[in-house]
């Protein structure tokens, strides 16, 4: 087989942190660079690939499974920007059924029908819902599926707590032949201070920041048009950053086992930063009053 090896990547992070936005921009940048890419949304909301398809929702694998006892996986694959393949796992309505089993069933269906090989993909990127709440949400990082995990975090403590929790899940599976951690994608980073917090966190947990992505109105504008930044504002600074991120992910080869902080360590670590934060706040208020 002369073809290049498929690379599978999973993106995790706290709810609302920017997983789908960032993943879609990575996918868009990679297809733009000439790769064959599938974005696989693992979230019952089924909105991962919206901005790759003009804001459209697509029928999910589990929607099809809900209607039919027999599903042709091809019916769940849609093309989006630049020919990117879009798949949404889908899931039950909130409060019923089992979303974790849903992810297992959806991933299995595509693997059974050997879709990744058939489409001769270079990249499959899994955009996985918030926290790894049960075994089902860990499926993309298990043996034989994604080999690299990236977590998205902002400099907010809640996002960092979530990242630290994810590291624990990754640690559990990485000892067992599952995916390793590629690093942290720092999102909504607009100040040096935010950058320093995340730098300190990754240093302590023995990982790295892959890219610092600022919070930008360009992203919002693109989203309102149902597009990724890569599509809507290809020449913007933000698009340049997403491209660089995509390239780093494409070139990334060596992932590692993270060293998550214990709950006590995490608490005292964040308390330390909080003190500095208050100090900065006070200074800026002081300035404001003085002026």
């Amino acid at each position: 087989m002369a073809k290049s090896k498929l690379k599978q990547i999973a993106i995790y992070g706290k709810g609302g942190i920017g997983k789908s936005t960032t993943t879609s921009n990575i996918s868009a940048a990679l297809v733009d660079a000439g790769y064959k890419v599938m974005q696989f949304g693992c979230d019952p909301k089924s909105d991962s690939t919206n901005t790759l398809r003009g804001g459209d929702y697509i029928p999910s694998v589990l929607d099809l499974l809900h209607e039919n006892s027999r599903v042709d996986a091809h019916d769940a694959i849609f093309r989006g920007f630049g020919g990117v393949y879009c798949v949404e796992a889908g899931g039950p309505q909130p409060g019923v059924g089992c979303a974790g089993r849903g992810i297992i069933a959806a991933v299995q269906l595509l693997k059974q029908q050997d879709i990744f090989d058939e489409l001769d993909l270079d990249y499959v990127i899994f955009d996985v819902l918030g926290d790894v709440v049960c075994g089902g949400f860990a499926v993309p990082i298990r043996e034989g599926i994604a080999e690299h995990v990236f977590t998205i975090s902002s400099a907010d403590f809640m996002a960092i707590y979530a990242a630290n929790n994810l590291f624990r899940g990754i640690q559990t599976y990485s000892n067992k032949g599952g995916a390793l951690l590629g690093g942290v994608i720092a999102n909504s980073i607009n100040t040096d201070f935010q950058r320093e917090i995340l730098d300190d966190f990754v240093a302590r947990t023995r990982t790295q920041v892959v890219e610092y992505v600022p919070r930008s109105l360009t992203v919002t504008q693109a989203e309102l048009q149902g597009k990724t930044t890569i599509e809507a504002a290809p020449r913007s600074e933000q698009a340049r950053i997403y491209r660089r991120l995509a390239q780093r992910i494409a070139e990334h080869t060596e992932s590692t086992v993270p060293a998550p902080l214990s709950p006590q360590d995490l608490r005292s670590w964040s308390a330390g930063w909080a003190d500095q934060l208050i100090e900065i706040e006070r200074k800026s208020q002081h300035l404001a009053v003085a002026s």
Partner: protein
Amino acid sequence: MPINLKIPEAETREQRLGTITQWEGSAAQLARDSAFSYGCAKGCVTGGPEGGRRLCEQNSPFAQASMCAETIAVTNATIIQDSVVIQHSPIGCAASQSFTCRYYRDLAAQRGWALEDPQSLCSNLTERDMVFGGIAKLEQAIREAWDRHHPRVIFVATSCASGIIGDDVDGAAQRLEAEIGVPVVTLHCEGFKSKHWSSGWDVIEHGILRRLVKTERRNRRQDLVNVIHLGGPDVFTPLLAPLGLRVNLVMGGSSLDRLAAMSEAAATVTMCFVLSYLATGLEQEYGVPELKAPLPYGLAATDAWLRDIARATGREDRVETVIASERARIAPELARLRDRLSGKKGFVAAGAAFAHGLVADLRELGVTVDSAYSFHHDPSTDSGDPRQDSLTYLVETWGDIPHFTVSPDQHFQAHAALKRSKPDFVICRHSGTMAVLAARLGIPVLPIFYSNDGLGYEGLLTIGRAILRVLPRQRFYQDVASHSQFPYQPWWRDQTNPYALSADSSVA
């Protein structure tokens, strides 16, 4: 779609073959609508003018009475010699293992193995494990299995419970395999995945294909034929030995060496296409040709089957002599049997291809068959080769069966089907529903547990003789009937349409 051995889970039959368990109509109609000849249209509406449509389950309130695919997978793993099976499940799933013990001991007696109980463990998942994950318990169970029994292979079967919480059994199996040094083969058989217990066959065959077959085929054995069967005595060696062929009898209780040797054989034949996943996989992965000739039920089919084997193994020069001598050997007794059986009416109940075979046997023996009861129906096989379309072959060779019921061995439906047919005797696989019902209706019944009985030339005699043994027991069965009562309301007691309660019942 080829069989996908890259991943540990086998695709279900619904998904691969469009298998159904509920249908009612004529055999000819069912054959026409199956995917072999006209492809499988996506909708339920008629595909082409000649038939060929997506076969849908008939709507029916009666879908109970089948069994769990997990049981099939687990039982057939347990009867592999030198194995330990671990059910990673609540203890309830393990209830079926008492049957497996009996089965294994019976096989052991027949095959001359040491007469002992097979080994199996259950991780006994409880509420706590459902909440916190059951992997630690599974690991403990695997170590325990190794310490206690030192098997040559350990199977780990999943269950609904482990599947829903998403326990990473494959990860655990790999780790423990590295630790103890014998293969730990996972069997993904969550009961909810398929309502067709026959999916369990695919699961165990998937595991065998992936893990237990020799991957390099250093010596190809030109005289070795794999025979995949459902269990029972070796009726194949007498047929194939005269051709200079050796039989590698697999499934239905095999040694690991036999399973490993499958990839070295010259060809594979399957005694029931329900099990053909293994044969198709052997051809696809190891280039061992899967013979597709119709199953050897009845004279002409047996001739054709032998010729196909001879062709694949380069023994055409000898085969005609074997056929002629076998035919001559059974001719006198066959004539006598036909004489005594002609005009009798038989009713067949068995699973898919096996049912089709038994109907052929009965018709070859001169028995009238107007009703058959098949436990499921596969509109296609994994090879997709129309030669494996045993139902079309049956209809073309022996004519239609006007009442062809597909039902998961459902009691109420079986009652109605028997009432409609009023046969002189019933021949059925398994001794569950059908045998007991027939007896209570006063009909002599011939239950077949080991399904090799009707195969080949000798099979005709075996079945014929067995029928003649049960027919005279009319009085006994009538006695049973006179002491039996059915808990049905009178209108159902008189009902002759098994699908009378279906919304979409189009049958008069």
